């Protein structure tokens, strides 16, 4: 199979899968079977592409040419392959989880759900493989639109308001900032192709570069950099599998992935070090990390706490990208991968608790670890990963991020990472502690609360299986980080 | 053709035009509006006809001893424009007849009032559009 064909299939398989899901809508089992098989197929495709790839002459697939001289083109590069690998690995796992969740939770419109899900993953693949900024932008916008029905899945007033905020913020930033930045870059350089070392020549003044960098990074609303982060907690009204895959993996990672791509391949790591705006953005990212952690501390709703934790973790990646040293970019790239495993585990656990125990508040979780030992053990693994302690994935990326900060002698960044680690511990560890060591509260007295299932046990097998799998993966990558590390170092030119 | 008095027919055209324009704007009666519109168009006819006149020129018919003719082309053109004007007036009047049938009035403000009343009756705000034609 040639590389071009592989690329085409990577894009087509999820898109056609969406159609297949739509066609299979009267038969739920077939529908979900199709979703799962397509997920596996996609992962195999991406893996075989990654295995065959030679970085010197990557395959290139031209899809179309909407602007004269500017094509929609797919070209794999190390970081994109890493992103595609993670997203396509976690998709089938999430599908298993979603089957259990959606049925146990008696959700409606499941066909719409699985269809939009497949389209979203297809767009994420497009973002990962984009060979230039225009292609990335196109799939970025498709992803925004395709995830809208997922966010508003419940159709309630609250969901509708969340959807409005979600789409409004993402579109406003991308059309308002990213698009003009892109057109300006095109006007200045005549290219938008991702090129190692950047595309800006010395003739572009550093003031212009600063402005462009600000526009690009702030225009990436999906990176949830404050003050454009509000959509992320709002989008938590979505069903948990959506939050898990899209808001811990695909959507937000698409955002920080864009930031990293722009930093490494449009500006270039070396150029970045000389741009004043990079420091501004670093401070903003640091502020976001700390601020979001403090907010997370105060959130009682479990999903909201996870959402703010996501916001803060995303800014690590922005921080790493803006450091302007290779080690920082490596840390950022690794964090895209490492954060994914931990965070998806946490979301899976939150969803399993919601469906099985009908509990969504942190304060209700006392003693739940005795009823749901596997789920809460996985939760603990995810929490340790967020904190960045060994032997879980999060440690590795935090290590590289620290190295990068020290390399660049950025004491501000070092300080932020240290303080935020403490904050992470403060908002995750009490949950784990309460779940295992605090006595269970007496069931709510109120008779109106027929939601309460005092006699619940573990979550159903699809959910349990999925969350244990991701927790295991999170531990495994700690011991075998070879593949992602090699890819990221390739990207950073080390 | 120099000096203001020599251009008096252009002054007439301008006057007619402004008068017609004023009638269109100021009158609420739709028929009167059309009268104004016709006046407005007529001024342009005069403008064109004046344009074609060549000083001391004769009607453009070949005849003995005549060497200077007026330019016939604007006159021909304006024939077309006159036809257009007549057609416009005809369509306009037809519309006024239909409006009178539908509303029972040809006064702008009364029509407006009836539309607003119909809106209130159906409980809609400005411009939905279901009130059946009477």
């Amino acid at each position, binding site marked *: 199979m040639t590389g071009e064909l592989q690329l085409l299939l990577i894009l087509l398989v999820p898109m056609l899968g969406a159609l297949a899901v739509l066609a299979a809508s009267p038969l739920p089992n077939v529908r979900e079977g199709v979703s799962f098989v397509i997920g596996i197929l996609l992962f195999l495709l991406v893996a075989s592409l990654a295995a065959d790839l030679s970085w010197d002459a990557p395959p290139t697939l031209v899809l179309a040419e909407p602007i*004269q001289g500017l094509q929609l083109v797919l070209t794999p590069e190390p970081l994109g392959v890493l992103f595609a690998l993670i997203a396509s690995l976690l998709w089938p796992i999430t599908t298993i989880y979603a089957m259990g969740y959606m049925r146990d939770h008696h959700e409606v419109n499941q066909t719409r759900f699985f269809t939009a899900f497949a389209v979203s993953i297809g767009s994420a693949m497009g973002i990962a493989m984009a060979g230039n900024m225009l292609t990335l932008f196109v799939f970025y916008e498709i992803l925004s639109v395709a995830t809208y029905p997922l966010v508003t899945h419940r159709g309630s007033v609250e969901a509708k308001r969340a959807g409005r905020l979600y789409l409004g913020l993402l579109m406003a930033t991308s*059309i308002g900032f990213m698009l003009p930045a892109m057109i300006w870059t095109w006007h200045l350089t005549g290219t938008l192709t991702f090129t190692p070392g950047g595309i800006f020549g010395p003739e572009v003044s550093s003031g212009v570069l600063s402005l462009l960098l600000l526009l690009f990074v702030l225009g990436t609303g999906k990176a949830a950099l404050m003050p454009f982060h509000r959509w992320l907690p709002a989008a938590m009204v979505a069903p948990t599998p959506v939050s898990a895959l899209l808001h811990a993996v695909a959507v937000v990672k698409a955002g920080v992935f864009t930031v990293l791509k722009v930093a490494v391949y449009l500006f270039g790591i070396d150029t970045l070090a000389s741009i004043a705006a990079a420091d501004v953005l670093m401070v903003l990212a640091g502020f976001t990390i700390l601020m979001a952690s403090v907010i997370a501390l105060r959130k009682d709703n479990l999903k909201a706490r996870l959402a703010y934790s996501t916001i803060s973790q995303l800014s690590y990646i922005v921080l790493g990208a803006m450091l302007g040293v290779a080690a920082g970019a490596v840390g950022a790239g690794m964090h895209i991968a490492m954060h994914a495993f931990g965070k998806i585990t946490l979301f899976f656990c939150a969803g399993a608790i919601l469906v099985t125990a009908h509990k969504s508040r942190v304060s209700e979780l006392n003693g739940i670890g005795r009823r749901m030992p596997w789920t809460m053990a996985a939760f603990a693994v995810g929490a340790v990963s967020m904190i960045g302690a060994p032997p879980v994935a999060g440690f590795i990326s935090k290590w590289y991020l620290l190295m990068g900060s020290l390399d660049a002698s950025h004491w501000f960044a070092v300080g932020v990472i240290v303080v935020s680690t403490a904050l992470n511990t403060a908002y995750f560890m009490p949950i784990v502690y309460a779940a295992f060591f605090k006595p269970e509260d007496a069931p709510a007295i109120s008779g109106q609360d027929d939601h309460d299932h005092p006699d619940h046990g573990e979550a159903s097998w699809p959910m349990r299986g999925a969350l244990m799998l991701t927790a295991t993966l999170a531990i495994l990558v700690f011991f075998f980080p070879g593949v992602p590390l090699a890819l990221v170092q390739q990207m950073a030119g080390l | 053709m120099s000096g203001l008095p020599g251009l008096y027919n252009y002054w007439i055209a301008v006057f007619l035009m402004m008068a017609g324009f004023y009638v269109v704007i100021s009158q609420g009666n739709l028929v009167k509006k059309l009268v104004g519109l016709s006046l*407005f168009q007529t001024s342009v006819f005069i403008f064109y006809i004046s344009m074609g006149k060549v000083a001391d020129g004769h009607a453009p018919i070949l005849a003995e001893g005549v060497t200077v003719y007026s330019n016939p082309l604007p006159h021909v053109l304006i024939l077309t424009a006159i036809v257009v004007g007549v057609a416009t007036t005809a*369509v306009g009047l037809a519309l006024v007849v239909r409006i009178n049938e539908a509303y029972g009035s040809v006064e702008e403000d009364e029509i407006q009032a009836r539309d607003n009343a119909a809106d209130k009756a159906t409980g809609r705000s400005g411009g*939905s559009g279901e009130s059946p034609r009477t």
Partner: protein
Amino acid sequence: MDHLAVLVVIVPLMSAPVCVLLDRSRPAWLTSLVAAWFSFGAAVMLLLRVSAEGPLRYSLGGWEAPWGIEFRIDVLGGYVLLIVTAVAALVMVFARHSVEQEIPHDRIARFYAALLLVFAGLAGITVTGDAFNLFVFLEISSLASYAAISMGRDRRALSASFQYLVMGTIGATFILIGIGMLYMMTGTLNMIDLAARLPEVSDSRTVRAGFAFLTVGIGLKLALFPLHLWLPNAYAYAPSTVTAFLAATATKVAVYALLRFVLEIFGVEFSLHAMPLDRILVFLGLLGILSGSLVAVFQRDLKRMLAYSSVAQIGYMVLGIGLASVTGVTAAILHVFNHALMKGALFLALGAVAYRVGAVTLREFAGMGQRLPWTTAAIVLGGLSLIGVPPTAGFVSKWYLVLGTLEQGLWLVAMLVLFGSLLALIYVWKLVEAAYFKPPPANAAAVAEAPLSMLVPVWTLVAANIYFGLYTDVSVGLASRVAHDLVGGGG
């Protein structure tokens, strides 16, 4: 082959009386359908030919140019002609069911006659090479469109049509005065001769006055802000078929007339540099974009909402012309094409909704996603194109327009243009929310999806929206070629 240039106009023109004579609805529809498709085929062949061999000149009745009337088709004319005929061909397919429901049975034949006359007039404007002839065709199409609009179901269609008649006639008379003044100074009505002779006399008050009259007159026809007041009512109350056809073609042809007169006959040097029209157009275009979009946000009647959105979209085109650069004019011409695609699709889809449900306000639109899934999906896709979300045609237009403004360092303008897009997002999304997240009204009867004869044209246009968002060799290629011809290589 040469005669195609004239047949493309004559066939619809002569089919109109045939419709009246037949006086039965089905044969009249068939006649119109055949005429429209014939013109479409002819337009395709003409465009292929002129883009390969250069402008095609055709002397009517064998009278050579300065004496007789000349039809002259160049790439710009052929391009707009193609848009007009293509939309007409699709609208005629759509028309059958819609017209049978909306128009009283005994008037259907005459309705088609009016529609054909509008079509013939618009096609005529794009092919003629004679300034006065352009005025005549303009009036043919305008008069017929007053009649067609007045056949709307609501009685307010009558007053809307009357209002349009008054403003349209004033506009046409202004154009007539302008043409007269040009004739006074140059002694010719042929567009090429005019363009050749005007520079010698351009420094005179008469030419400047003529220029002003022409611009304002065309501005009225174009619904250029603030001369747009006739448009929302006319579009809102006209029969669905007429709205779709006019929205997709009439203002486009007016843009064509503006390009022809301002850029070709008067020339860039005179109109955009000696006269301050460039700044005026940019300013009015921006006002149009912002006010049109803003008013659209608050509309509840969907046809009216889209009508105001048209005012905004015309602002984009005018803004592009006002930039006076190759990129700007390319964007304007490209948007003429793309906007015809999106507004055609949207208004036709609304027509299909009206056919099934009756009226199209936001209230009736609640729950439409379940009631008419295909039609609603088409509206959503058309709406995305209106916003300018990639990969739709609207995105490409916006790209070139913003590029054009950035080339000249007009930062604020670029930002406002994009802000207009976000306003479009708001009004389109109101529609989406109503369609998918509100239950259908309690008294809503179960309805079947719109008939295939409506869905096919709608989805053809939707598919075109996406196709021309991805593959722009034709649309951008022709537009930039025309822009180079009009503005000159330097830009």
